[in-house]
């Protein structure tokens, strides 16, 4: 058996450093103490320092200690420690750029470790596109504080006042004579800063130093290549899935064949012929096999005979009846409508009213690599190796689930398949922990494809009713939005009573989460407005594959499809060009927080300009003759402070209903761009992920189980669906010369949000057919084309 522990080099180094028996001798440059009022120390430098030896226990790190965030090494390099993860959007590179600028070190002099609970401060992991917008700030401030301390130390060393020194590339220099300098390593290399920080919470963490003004940032704004990419293309990166521990076992789960079924009995003799079977574990309705080898576990999980009793009531309607169910059922809760003006009176006085229903099915994460975790119970501790984007709550949740002290549990974050929200990486982390804890050996669990596609968390299905009123001049006077979301019992991150294994074991919260029905991001100036939302439940609330959890911009694509699709319908009814119609609505907005109105107008104009051949028209281009119909559609939205406008050009094959989005244009403003190429790629892939949801993605089920379980039954976008051109314009700011420099906002989700709407609007322009039910697979498009022609 292989017994190699192959951790990525950076992490391995860090772990070695954290183990005093291995590290103290060669890590400490000397026993010399820091001068300066902050005091002296002979402790080894490193996260958590001596207290976080690799074999535990693992106390929480103190984010109010500068040493928790930054270490200067004797070779005049630095390591940054941040409590975030990087799902492939390049935030690890961006964070380094931000911290290098504040610390005055060159990018190549630094490295950055992320998201491992005993090495990096708890910044909550990733989510909400907040990496750059929110979590980057404490990183900048602590780096600025480290620079301030180093300038003081350097000034003393150079026998100059602090006002007469500066810093560059890891050295403190005399302003008057840059040849007089001292390196950061000479000042603190291998030793602690021992500087306390302040702040009520991790995001408020700060020292005494101010961050630099935008004009002085030099590393920020450069398109530095991501350093995780070379090892991802040459095969040298060790992923979480690659770890092999001594004595490690392989487990696979067996899920209920019918949602809500009760496990009656298990026939272990059915797998007795398979070599390497170590244990069949059952607790409640959770069932797993654990084997010596991976292929044995896969075979045993397929072959294991178990008797299940189906639930008395069907767990859910079939997917083709979902929207009838959604519109006919009583809500579990309704939000107080957001009301402005007098919509009823405005509708009564309207020259023209419109009404339309929009529908979006459940859509899943369906990660390319099924959910994975490895748990190691050695030394009476529990280490979980995971790519979960919420490693800190995984640690806390597992400790609660297994009734272990938190300090005996840690999560080591490593690269893995994409995580755009609350994925099954949460669920599998608990499963691996449970199995390893129970068996007393390291256990590696990976879900199978059918499990990932059927049982991962889903973005909620939505049904919308939209109503709008136009006056005689074609002005939108009133809008009524009513959303019905299947989101009851929405699961959060790493909750020890809602992860799948807990549900199957019968451990549940007394009351399911209420869930939510989201409202649109409306910047438009609409005088009379009513926004309402209702949450609904399926008959089966627990132990169901149709459980909702956050999926990239959790409700945004659904809500924006209905809202921006309907705005397009109103533009047509008003006989207005859809871009112009939106422009006037934005210009009429009374809001301009964070210059969002001006920036929205700027992205709308930039998208039209970048498109280059936008023909204003007040009616769809269709009907046209010929086998291929073409058209373009626009959608606009914002997410927090990031604004975006997208134009899709489509070709629709009349005979088949096939839709190809030939070109995408995006104008995007997220304020200060840290790494423009990294940002462009994030924007691009976010758009295409949205395009996949617009064209293909739909969870399908009968009245017992999910039937879309692999890449044949659950298609996703492919190479042939890819646009031949994608034009992205980064619009930083607006034409207003009075506007101060914008801070850095988030970009992980905004471009994803308007895609279903933009594609639907383009299909309408091409064909005259308004598609109000996503996704736009060819059979649905063809049926709609045939309906209009007959």
């Amino acid at each position, binding site marked *: 058996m*292989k017994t190699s522990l192959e951790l990525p080099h950076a992490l391995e180094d860090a772990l070695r450093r954290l183990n005093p028996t291995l590290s103290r001798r060669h890590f400490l440059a000397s026993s010399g103490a820091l001068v300066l009022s902050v005091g002296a120390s002979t402790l080894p430098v490193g996260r958590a320092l001596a207290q976080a030896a690799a074999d535990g226990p693992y106390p929480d790190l103190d984010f109010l200690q500068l040493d928790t965030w930054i270490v200067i090494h004797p070779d005049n390099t630095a390591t940054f420690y941040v409590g975030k993860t990087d799902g492939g959007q390049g935030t690890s590179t961006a964070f380094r750029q931000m911290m290098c600028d504040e610390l005055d070190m060159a990018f190549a002099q630094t490295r950055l470790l992320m998201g491992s609970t005993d090495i990096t401060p708890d910044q909550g992991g990733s989510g909400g596109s907040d990496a750059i917008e929110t979590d980057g700030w404490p990183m900048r401030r602590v780096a600025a504080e480290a620079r301030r301390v180093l300038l003081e130390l350097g000034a003393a060393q150079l026998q100059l006042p602090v006002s007469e020194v500066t810093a560059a590339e890891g050295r403190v220099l005399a302003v008057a004579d840059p040849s007089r300098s001292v390196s950061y390593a000479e000042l603190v290399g291998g030793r602690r800063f021992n500087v306390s920080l302040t702040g009520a919470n991790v995001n408020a963490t700060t020292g005494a130093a101010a961050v630099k003004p935008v004009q002085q940032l030099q590393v920020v704004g450069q398109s530095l290549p991501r350093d*995780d990419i070379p090892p991802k293309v040459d095969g040298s990166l060790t*992923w979480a899935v690659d770890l092999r521990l001594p004595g490690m076992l392989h487990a696979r789960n067996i899920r209920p064949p019918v949602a809500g079924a009760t496990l009656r009995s298990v026939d272990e003799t059915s797998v007795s012929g398979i070599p390497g079977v170590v244990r069949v574990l059952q607790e409640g309705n959770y069932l797993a096999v654990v084997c010596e080898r991976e*292929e044995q576990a896969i075979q045993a999980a397929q072959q294991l005979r178990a008797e299940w009793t189906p639930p008395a009531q069907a767990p859910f309607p079939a997917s083709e009846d979902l929207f009838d169910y959604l519109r006919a059922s009583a809500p579990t809760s309704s939000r107080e409508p957001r009301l402005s003006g007098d919509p009823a009176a405005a509708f009564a006085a309207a020259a023209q009213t419109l009404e339309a229903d929009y529908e979006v099915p459940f859509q899943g994460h369906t990660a390319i*690599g099924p959910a994975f975790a490895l748990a190691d119970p050695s030394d009476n501790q529990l280490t979980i190796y995971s790519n979960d984007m919420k490693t800190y709550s995984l640690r806390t949740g597992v400790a609660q689930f297994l009734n272990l002290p938190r300090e005996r549990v840690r999560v080591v974050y490593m690269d893995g398949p994409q995580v755009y929200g609350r994925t099954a990486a949460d669920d599998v982390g608990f499963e691996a922990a449970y199995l390893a804890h129970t068996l007393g050996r390291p256990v590696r669990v990976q879900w199978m494809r059918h499990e990932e596609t059927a049982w991962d968390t889903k973005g909620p299905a939505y049904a919308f009713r939209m109503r709008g009123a136009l006056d005689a001049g074609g002005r939108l006077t009133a809008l009524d939005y009513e959303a019905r979301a299947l989101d009851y019992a929405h699961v959060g991150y790493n909750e020890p009573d809602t992860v799948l294994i807990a549900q199957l074991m019968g451990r549940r919260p007394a009351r399911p989460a209420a869930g939510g029905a989201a409202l649109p991001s409306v910047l438009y100036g609409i005088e009379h407005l009513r926004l309402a939302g209702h949450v609904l439940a399926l008959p089966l609330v627990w132990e169901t594959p149709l459980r909702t959890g956050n999926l990239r911009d959790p409700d945004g694509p659904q809500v924006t499809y209905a809202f921006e699709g309907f705005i397009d319908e109103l533009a047509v009814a008003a006989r207005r060009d859809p871009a112009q119609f939106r422009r006037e609505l934005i210009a009429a907005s009374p809001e301009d927080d964070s210059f969002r109105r001006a920036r929205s107008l700027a992205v709308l104009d930039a998208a039209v300009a970048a498109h280059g051949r936008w023909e204003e028209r007040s009616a769809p281009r269709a009907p046209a003759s010929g086998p291929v119909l073409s058209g373009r559609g626009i959608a606009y939205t914002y997410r927090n402070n990031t604004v975006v406008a997208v134009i899709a050009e489509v070709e629709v094959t009349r005979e088949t209903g096939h839709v190809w989005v030939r070109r995408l244009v995006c104008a995007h403003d997220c304020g200060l761009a840290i790494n423009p190429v990294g940002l462009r790629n994030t924007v691009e892939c976010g758009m295409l992920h949205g395009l996949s949801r617009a064209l293909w993605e739909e969870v399908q089920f009968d009245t017992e189980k999910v039937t879309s379980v692999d*890449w044949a039954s659950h298609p996703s*976008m492919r190479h042939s669906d890819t646009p031949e051109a994608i034009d992205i314009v980064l619009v930083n700011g607006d034409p207003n010369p009075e506007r101060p420099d914008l801070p850095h906002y988030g970009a992980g989700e905004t471009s994803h949000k308007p895609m279903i709407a933009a594609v639907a609007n383009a299909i309408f322009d091409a064909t005259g057919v308004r598609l109000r039910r996503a996704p736009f697979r060819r059979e649905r498009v063809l049926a709609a084309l045939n309906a209009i022609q007959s």
Partner: protein
Amino acid sequence: MSIVALNVNGAVREVDVEPSTPLLYVLRNDLALRGPRFGCGLGQCGACTVLIDGAAVRSCVLPVSAVSGAITTLEGLAQNGALHPLQQAWIDEQVPQCGYCQNGQLLTAKALLDHNPRPTDAEIRAGMEGVLCRCMTYYRIQAAIKRVVGATEPEAAV
């Protein structure tokens, strides 16, 4: 269990496994290779792709006993320490997001260009069609392939 000899990245390796074991698990768990990855176990997504005698093959559905040719994995793509032009193009175009599928994308592109050094855009799409990416790096992948194709000198007219 039985001894199976495999030619992997230029070296002959012997493993003691059930002959029916899919090649993927042997490469990963017995030979400690990291390029081929489990994505579906059904031959649908391409994450497990390896080259066998130059052809892109799904190792998750191929019994190890059925392998007869020389296997090249992602780790074997670079020669004498120099990245394959496709790998360099992947870096130049900053292709990966999470990167989990890129093993299959790279090796399938390699097989495509070995067979057809100057594919049209349509041939690139068709040749890559069976390899899925859920971060949606398709546009970047196609740009990287075109970068390599563009750098290839057209063959002299005969």
